[in-house]
């Protein structure tokens, strides 16, 4: 039996017609302006970061990166990311699952709430925790009585980071899961799978590239967050300084090499994220297309 209609799922490129193509000089001017902007506002600062970091040679650079305070800042940043990213993955998947696959009251409210961290200034996000957990805060007295330290310590930094990063995974997954609907899960259940098996073998593989993309963005933000973390950290060297905070401290102390060396690591992280993001978009563009453009 021959079946003639094989569908192709590739991305389709719209060919440009002559009518909407501008003349050569116009195109060159437009491209020139765009490139000049990119060079001045993005490329130049990036070069300056690496240039400043290396002005006193590679020796001073590695020395700056291996100083105890810097090493502690790197460790703390990795720790914070290691805690907040998995938690946000769990939260993001649960929220997306609930929103995309079920109808319930307050769904629109929940969706709006997830976007809150995007619309609130990070400083406010930090201050909320100070108001909640600070000595004068709502829960301050109770926490003190029970010997629990949140503010100006690692838990506070983790909480603030979770707050600012929690839309990333959920926002990636919600449109993807909504588009895919319940059909595959129903099929899995009808074949005898239990809920967990349906999730593990069907739902998760269906969204894995979108999830990875969300994790990537979430991680980049978790490591790079300054504002919210700055408010709750207390800037204790070697204890509560993350990399972005450490960069600021070193810079304020006129330690340009140190500051830019740490900054170069963050810039490197950004570049790696960018490359991975581009690779993901190139290979799995169709799957994550719905989620582009924050």
């Amino acid at each position, binding site marked *: *039996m021959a*079946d003639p209609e094989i569908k192709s799922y590739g991305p389709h490129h719209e060919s440009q017609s002559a009518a909407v193509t501008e003349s050569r000089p116009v195109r060159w001017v437009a491209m020139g302006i765009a490139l000049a902007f990119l060079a001045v506002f993005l490329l130049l600062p990036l070069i300056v970061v690496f240039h400043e970091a290396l002005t006193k040679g590679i020796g001073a650079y590695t020395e700056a990166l291996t100083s105890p305070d810097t090493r502690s800042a790197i460790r703390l940043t990795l720790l914070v990311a290691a805690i907040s990213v998995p938690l946000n993955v769990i939260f993001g998947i649960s929220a997306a699952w609930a929103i995309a696959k079920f109808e319930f009251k307050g769904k629109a409210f929940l969706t709006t709430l997830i976007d809150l961290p995007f619309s609130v200034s990070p400083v406010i996000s930090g201050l909320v925790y100070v108001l909640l957990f600070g000595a004068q805060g709502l829960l301050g007295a109770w926490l003190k009585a029970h010997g629990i330290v949140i503010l100006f310590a690692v838990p506070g930094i983790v909480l603030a980071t979770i707050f600012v990063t929690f839309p990333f995974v959920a926002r990636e997954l919600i449109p993807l899961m909504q588009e895919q609907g319940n*059909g595959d899960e129903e*099929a899995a*259940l009808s*074949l005898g*799978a239990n809920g967990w098996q349906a999730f593990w073998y069907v739902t998760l593989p269906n969204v894995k590239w979108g999830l990875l993309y969300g994790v990537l963005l979430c991680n980049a933000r978790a490591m790079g967050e300054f504002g919210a973390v700055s408010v709750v950290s207390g800037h204790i060297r070697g204890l509560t300084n993350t990399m972005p905070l450490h960069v600021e401290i070193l810079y304020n102390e006129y330690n340009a090499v140190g500051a830019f060396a740490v900054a170069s690591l963050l810039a490197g992280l950004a570049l790696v994220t960018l490359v991975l993001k581009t690779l993901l978009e190139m290979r799995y563009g169709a799957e994550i297309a719905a989620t582009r453009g924050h």
Partner: protein
Amino acid sequence: MEVRVVNVRKEFERFPALHDVSLDIRSGELIALLGPSGSGKTTLLRLIAGLERPTKGAIFFGEEDASQKSIQERNVGFVFQHYALFRHMTVADNIGFGLKVRHGAARPSAQEIRRRASELLDLVQLSGLEKRYPAQLSGGQRQRVALARAMAIEPKVLLLDEPFGALDAQVRRELRRWLREIHDATGHTTVFVTHDQEEALELADRVVVMSQGRIEQVGSADEIYDTPNSPFVYSFIGESSSLPVKVDNGEIWLADRPVGLQAPHAPSGEALLYFRPHDVELLDGCSGCIAGTVAASRRVAGTRRVELEIGGERQRVEIELPVDHPAAQKSRVAFRPTRWKLFPAS
């Protein structure tokens, strides 16, 4: 496995999708749920599967009350309208999925699962495509993989939701014949949903005609076609014409003339007369007949269909004439239905 649907009602957020539906499906039967969209046919199928729970009523599989069982426990093979193949799994993994997710001793070895999958692929005539992904298959091939996947769990009942809906006409006809062969070979009790009457009448042992959440008629293709029991079935299945008539003492009158038909048990008063275009006899004279002027005429395969305008109301009916009948435009034609039914005027 015999399936009995007993007084099932289903509401979605207070909107009734099915009103008090009862249906007996015999073991090994191939049955079609036929109706326009919104008639509740897919809801009924999903209720049998356990994808939905009835608001009222019960569904029995054999002697067992299945309505409180989950879909996993019911052991039904469900083929979804858009197949719902797992896109990240190969064809073989898709077919083996239902066996892989079994627990403990019920789960066959990986080798056994592979063997079952390739056996089923042979059955659906797709041998050699084990390693393909769904995106690399044509629509008809996907349909067959979906069926093989549903049959892998050795279901008690096979349920198909618009199985050929997304395919083009030629593939559809081939698959139809093929599904009938598979059904005859495996003997599964099979229920499928369709809005295509040709498909239902050709393929099914019995057809369940549904409309607005109710079952209108259940019967073989012949019964449904020859003795429709409601105006809906008359107009939904095949072609038909209707005329407003009056019954007086068992005699049927059209306007002020007798039609020449007797309905001794019908109550006197207004009624609607239904008949099919080919169930008519042509008359020469007209003492007791329906007479009309030819308004349009078209050739349909071996016959000619003419539209007649009847009486002052200019009611239009369609009847079938031999190709060589001299009825041209504006000429008068007299006829009388040979097979017909009266329904109360609504």
